[in-house]
């Protein structure tokens, strides 16, 4: 017991607390000035805004994917199931460089989109693509077990009562998986906000345009402007902690509301 607590404090708590202490060295006005600078604000907006959009996109596509994987049998299903885990297992730097190569104007996908006037690499759209890439497994893997465990009799009951297929899905199946969808969404969102490696290659990293918050922290560090870095990091950390508690609360709510049938 004592050893675990000691280890934990050494490895997790102490480093994190330096963040708070370092920021506490700033006056409140200095703190506000740093985090409300134009560059910082834009970085926050970009990071959180695109993460939210990417998590939404993952919600939609993740739902389609998980429905296909759980509800249907078709050749290649196992392969598709394995592919879902790739963004999770692939190191972020590898994802970063390959996505950049693909979506650059000279790349296979970027080359197809360029004539349409769509530029992906080195724009916020590129960041969006990278964030969708890394967030997908979260939605799918969170919803998958819930959908698999869904009691088939519920749908049979709805059908026997005269409900059409769409009504059954909308009013019986969907409500049962909403908690899992929310949890998956939040997990994808939390991951996307802090993402670094997959994004910095494709982003272009132009300040006030395509610069994500984590990158701004790194730049400030390199400039030895520790105070700035910690202030921005603190804001991100607090929001991450909020996500963490939100996820835990959602998971407990999920267990309360659905539980296992019989």
């Amino acid at each position, binding site marked *: 017991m004592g050893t*675990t607590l000691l*280890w934990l404090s050494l*490895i*997790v708590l*102490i*480093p994190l607390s*330096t*963040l708070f*202490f370092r920021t506490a060295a700033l006056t409140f006005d200095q703190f506000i000035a740093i985090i409300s600078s134009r560059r910082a604000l834009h970085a926050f907006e970009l990071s959180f805004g695109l993460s939210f959009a990417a998590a939404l996109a993952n919600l939609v*596509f993740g739902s*389609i*994917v998980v*429905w*296909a*994987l759980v*509800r*249907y049998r*078709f050749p*290649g299903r196992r392969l*598709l199931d394995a*592919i*879902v*885990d790739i*963004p999770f*297992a*692939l*190191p*972020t*730097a*590898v994802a*970063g*460089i*390959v996505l950049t*190569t*693909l979506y650059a104007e000279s790349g*296979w*996908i970027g080359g197809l989109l360029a004539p349409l006037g769509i530029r992906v690499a080195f724009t916020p759209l590129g960041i969006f693509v990278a964030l969708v890439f890394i967030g*997908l497994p979260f939605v799918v893997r969170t919803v998958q077990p819930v959908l698999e465990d869904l009691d088939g009799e519920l749908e*049979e009951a709805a059908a026997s009562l005269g409900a059409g*297929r769409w009504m059954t*899905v909308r009013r019986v199946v969907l409500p049962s998986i909403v908690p899992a969808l929310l949890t998956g969404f939040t997990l994808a969102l*939390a991951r996307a906000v*802090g993402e*670094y*490696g997959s994004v910095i290659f494709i982003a272009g990293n132009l300040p006030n345009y395509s610069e994500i918050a*984590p*990158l701004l*922290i*790194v730049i400030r*560090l390199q400039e030895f402007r*520790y105070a700035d*870095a*910690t202030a921005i*990091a603190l804001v*991100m950390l607090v929001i*991450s*902690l909020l*996500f*963490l508690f939100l996820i*835990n609360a959602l998971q407990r709510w999920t267990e309360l509301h659905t539980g296992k049938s019989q």
Partner: protein
Amino acid sequence: MSALPVAELMQESALPDALNESVAARAAIHAQVLRRADARADPPWVKWLVIALAAGFLGLFIGLPLICVFIQAFAKGAAAYIAALADPDTLSAIRLTLIVAAISVIANSVFGVIGAWAIAKFEFRGKHLLITLIELPFSISPVIAGLVFVLLFGLQGYLGPWLVAHGIKVIFALPGLALVTIFVTFPFVVRELIPLMRQQGTEEEEAALSLGASGLGTFFRVTLPNVKWALLYGILLCNARAMGEFGAVSVVSGHVRGDTNTIPLHVEALYDGYQFAAAFAVASLLALLALVTLIFKVVLEGRLEQE
């Protein structure tokens, strides 16, 4: 005495009127019956549309990039591929990565097992807080993880002056890389073990103790073997993340080629230096690692389910 006549098996066999139908009509009904879907099936057009969308999305978005890694790696031919891998800077990057990963895996396994054991088998105040803290490295940005270690051990950090005075280099050197990697991979082993240990309860350990085994003996001969597959799974994930970590090590590394670059950092260095084929060649190693990890994951998941 009375006995009833011989009993024979009889079925309700009133001939229904409907049997007057022609053979063709009955066959038609039969065929219709066979084509029926049950109450849980979606209309066929929905099914194929969803499958097409799912396969298209996954193939294009995820499958394609993976394939692209390997294609780009061999863009300049097999000879260039091997040359990129045999390059001294690459080799030292590999060596560094292996060392860092080994340290992280060993450290996190040992304390992960102990931590999971304490959490799963005992009740104490602050347990929930502990569990939340354990999950913390998962949910914070790797950059922030690197940042806090710089704040601690960097030149301007809290321990900076002390370290300089004693000639110890943490940041921009191996210890820093190892520490930060331990931090970000901390939860992997623990969270695989906790649910399993909790589920297994304390009965077997109590039985062993009552039979005279020592505490430590019980731990090694009863507790550990029971969780071996979950432990292996956790180590696997821990290792994969440790070798592939980028953001956190990027912050604490000095980015010195051949010295403080792990494989992911080396990939970045090559890419930034416009040596694309070489970058992808080295990256393909990591991609292979990912694939191997996934294969083992599938195998181990099967073993875990059996338990």
